[in-house]
Every structure is written in C-alpha cells, then in structure tokens.
C-alpha cells in the first residue's frame, strides 16, 4: 500500500543525504555514549588498571579469572537475580491490579490514583531515607505497626535474611504506580462493548479478565516488562542510601558492585570486566525480548 513514494519526486541521492543528516546528531551522541563505551568496556576488560606512573598493560583473561574467583561478584549476581525475579512480577502484578481498580467505578478514585502514582514522582534517593526510618528497629514505623499486634522488634536491614526483601519492597513501591499509568491508558482504550457482550453472556469477571482483558493488554505487559527488567539492573539509588550493599554483601547488586569497584577502589579495568557481564546479561534479555516481540508487534 506504499504507493506514492516520496522518492518519486525527490532525487534518490538527496533523500539518502537528507536522511542521514537528520539522523546524524542523534547518531553521533549514540555512538559516543552507547556504542563506543560498550566497545571500550569490552576492550578495557583485557587490560590492567593504570595507576600513578604505571600505564595499562594487556593482561589477557586475568580480570575474568579474578572475577570468577571473586565471591562478591557471585554474590552480587545471585542477589541481582533474586531481586529481579521478585521485583519484576510483583511490580507488574500490582500495577495491573491498581489500574484495574482505578479503571473501575470505585469510591475515592482520585485519591487512589494520587497515592499509587506519587512515589514515581519522588526521587528514590530522597524516599530511601524515609524508608530507612520505616525499617529502623524499635521505633521505626514498621516495628511500631507490628508492635501493635504484639510482634517484637526486628533489625530489618541489619539481618541477612530480611535486608534484600526490604529493598525489593522499596523498588516495587517506587515503580508500580508508574507502570499503572500504562495499563490505565491501555485499559481505557479497550472497547466497552466487549465487557457488555461478556456481561450479556454471563461470563464471570475473572473469566473475562483472564480470557479477554489480559490477552488484550499483552503489548502493554511486554512494554512494562522491558522497563521493569531494565530498572532491576539499573536502579541502585536505594542501595547507596540504605545498605551500601551490606550486611556482608547481602544487598549488593551488580551495578552497585561496579560502582564500588570503579569509583571507590578505582579499579577501572575490573569494573569494566564486571560491566561486560552486565552488558551480556542485558543483551541476552534484549535478544529474548526481540524474538518474543517480533511475533506480536510489527516494527514497520
């Protein structure tokens, strides 16, 4: 159906040049700050860190060897998987529930929408300090609330069994409202006739959701999924504020460890090696999604 091509009236060469010229500014920046650094990171991982008068030397796979032997790396990787595997489904499920509630006829809808969405607007760095209060043993809000039910005080962030879960809760709280907006936008564009038809046929709400609504929301779910995955590897602000990766690395995520190695230990080569792992992880996920997406959303 692409009958009337612009190229019919403009010379071909002209379009090529025009196209590239329009792309150029963005391309320059993309190459400079995405493709070049990704490549440079890969190359750096085969060199040693330059220090003082000593320059960088080619060390082959030494950095990778060190990484494999580094228990903190494995811990961070494992933490990150646990973290992602919890945060992603929880956030998506909650955001969908929120959207369904707000999309329906419900008392106090604007309050609900306000309260669900507000965390998104606040800087993580700021609210993490408030969450620190929630988790404080004894007089912290969580302990005060649980105290009403007779529970004794818990050292939430100072215990290796609960610390990561606490951070997961903060991440879910921060992002669910953001994703809710996307679901809300999608829900409001679903045809109401569907619901009416289903009601006439006497289909239950759960059945209707499972068989009609949820499948129709699939593109949104995928979009949200991509963002949730990215955030679970990208966002470490709360860790910087709340635990610094402790106790004993139980809350260290991969990017936090990269930050620590790169900007506290100043071991840029090893930080690059760790970044390569993160990039490979993200690339694998991207590929997976690309294959998955391809069948559903048409790019052209």
């Amino acid at each position, binding site marked *: 159906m692409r009958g009337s091509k612009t190229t019919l009236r403009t010379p071909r060469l002209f379009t090529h040049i025009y196209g590239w010229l329009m792309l150029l500014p963005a391309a320059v920046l993309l190459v400079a700050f995405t493709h070049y650094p990704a490549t440079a*990171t890969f190359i750096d991982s085969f060199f040693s860190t330059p220090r003082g008068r000593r320059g960088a030397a080619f060390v082959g796979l030494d950095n990778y060897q060190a990484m494999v032997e580094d228990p903190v790396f494995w811990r961070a990787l494992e933490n990150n998987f646990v973290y992602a595997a919890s945060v992603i489904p929880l956030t998506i499920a909650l955001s969908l529930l929120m959207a369904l509630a707000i999309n329906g006829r419900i008392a106090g809808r604007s309050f609900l929408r306000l309260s669900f969405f507000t965390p998104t607007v606040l800087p993580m760095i700021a609210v993490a300090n408030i969450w620190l209060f929630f988790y404080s043993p004894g007089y912290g809000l969580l302990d005060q609330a649980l105290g009403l039910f007779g529970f004794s005080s818990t050292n939430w962030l100072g215990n290796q069994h609960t610390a990561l879960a606490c951070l997961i809760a903060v991440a879910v709280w921060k992002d669910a409202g953001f994703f809710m907006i996307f679901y809300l936008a999608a829900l409001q564009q679903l045809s109401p006739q569907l619901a009416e038809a289903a009601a006439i046929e006497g289909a239950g709400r759960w059945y209707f959701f499972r068989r009609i609504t949820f499948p129709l929301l699939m593109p949104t779910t995928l979009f949200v999924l991509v963002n949730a995955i990215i955030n679970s590897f990208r966002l470490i602000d709360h860790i910087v504020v709340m635990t610094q990766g402790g106790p004993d690395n139980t809350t260290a995520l991969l990017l936090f460890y990269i930050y620590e190695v790169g900007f506290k230990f100043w071991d840029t080569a090893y930080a690059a090696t760790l970044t390569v792992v993160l990039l490979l992880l993200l690339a694998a996920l991207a590929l997976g999604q690309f294959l998955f997406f391809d069948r559903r959303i048409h790019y052209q």
Partner: protein
Amino acid sequence: MSGPQRTRTAIPALETAGAWLLALVWILPIAYGLWAAIHPSAYSAHFGLNAPLTVENFVKAWNAAPFARYFLNTFLLVTMILVVQLVLCTLAAFAFARLSFVGREIAFILVLLQLMIMPDVLIVANYRTMTALGIVDTIPAIGLPYMASAFGIFLLRQTFKSVPRELDEAARVEGASPLTVLLKVYVPLAKPVYIAYGLVSVSYHWNNFLWPLIVTNSVSTRPLTVGLQIFASSDQGIDWSVISAATLMTSAPLLIAFLLFQRQFVQSFMRAGIR
C-alpha cells in the same frame, strides 16, 4: 482523538477495601515525610495530635546546603536535556519514519540497542570519555549520555508513521522541503506524544542520581538529588525531620505539577499510545 464512551465496571466492596488498604500503604512514606517535616525532630518517631507544628526544619535544611543553587542546576539540566532530546529525536524519528536511505534498518536496530544498554550501566567508560573531553564536573556532562534517547526516537517514529500520507503529500505538492513538512505537519500532530515524553524525561532526570553523583563534584554543577544525598549522609547520622523537609522541598515542583495536571498526565499517555 477522544476514546470511545466508557462505562466503568463497579468494583465490589471487598476489593474496594483492598484497594484502599494498598493506597494507604502506598501513601504512607509521603505522609510520614510530611509529618516529620512539619514537626520538631523529637516527634519524628512519635505520633500524636498534640505535637507542635514548626517550619524550622525547612529553614534548617535550606540553610544547611546551597539548595537554591542545586535547584538552578537541576532546572538547567532537565531543560537542556529535554530541548536537545526533542530536537534530536524528532529529526531522527522522522528520518526513520518517512525517509528511505541506505542503512536505515541497521541504523534503527543500533538505535534500539540503547533501549536495553542504557547509559546508566556504562558509567565507567563514559566517565573516562568525559575526562578525556575535559568536561567532568559540568552540567552538559551529566546530560550528554542521555540526549540521544532511543525511547524518544522509537516513540516519535511510531507516531510519525501513523500520520496519514495524504497530509504529507499535500504539503509536498506545494513544494515544501522535508524539514518544512516535518515542522508544519508532523510535529503539531504529535503534540500529545511530546507532552508525555517530556513528562517522562523531566521526571527521570529530575530524579536521576548515580551518574550525576559520579560526574559532578562541586556546588555549581550538582543537581538536587546529589546535593540531597550529600546533605543527608553526614557523619552525624540521620535527622529525619530535616531530611524530610529537604525531600519535600526538592520534589515539590514535580509533586505540585503532578497534582495539578494528573488528569492531563494520564490522558497524554493515552493519546500518545504508549501502552
């Protein structure tokens, strides 16, 4: 462009109660922040109706760090990023949507790569680039990695593709250049997308922390988030009253904007077709 007439499904009482419970939990941190900010610090862990009110925490926070300067820095930062993003993404998106040129497909895939490999994870290499360019500790250095946004390009490309060809053709018959067509036809039609994207971009960069933390180290460049963290992490431990006051102060512009425009916010997302 308005959607079909909507009839809302009634939510049963039990589920309404559930939603309210969730909402209360969700608002709790902000409610607490508000409580702590307007009461003396002795009341930051004790709640009662007889607690005296005070504005002292705001005064203390404002005086303890150069927040006015941080506000200016953040404002310059988000404005600079947004303006450049809009220009670059519009041009690139139009090229991808409507011009056929050699290497378009591969270039598009290379752009999409940034959707997954965001600048946030390339901190080590990007820091070195900034050092080499001699622009560490400048506001442009905070913004540069984000200025060509794959998300923006992707979004606008989808939008431009949905513009009817006929409008485009009509303008061209009158002899308009592609750039004129873009400005006169495409950009006005994509207004809701620009608004939605702008909102996401502004709130993202207003709240961004890790990269600015790394690349800035002076008062004249530091954005609010970094200033706030430095302010909060003194050796003396945490004073939640002052921190809450600072938190509210620093997020106030976004918070107020959202409160005022929350309906438009959601609608612009709907119209933008981000779903």
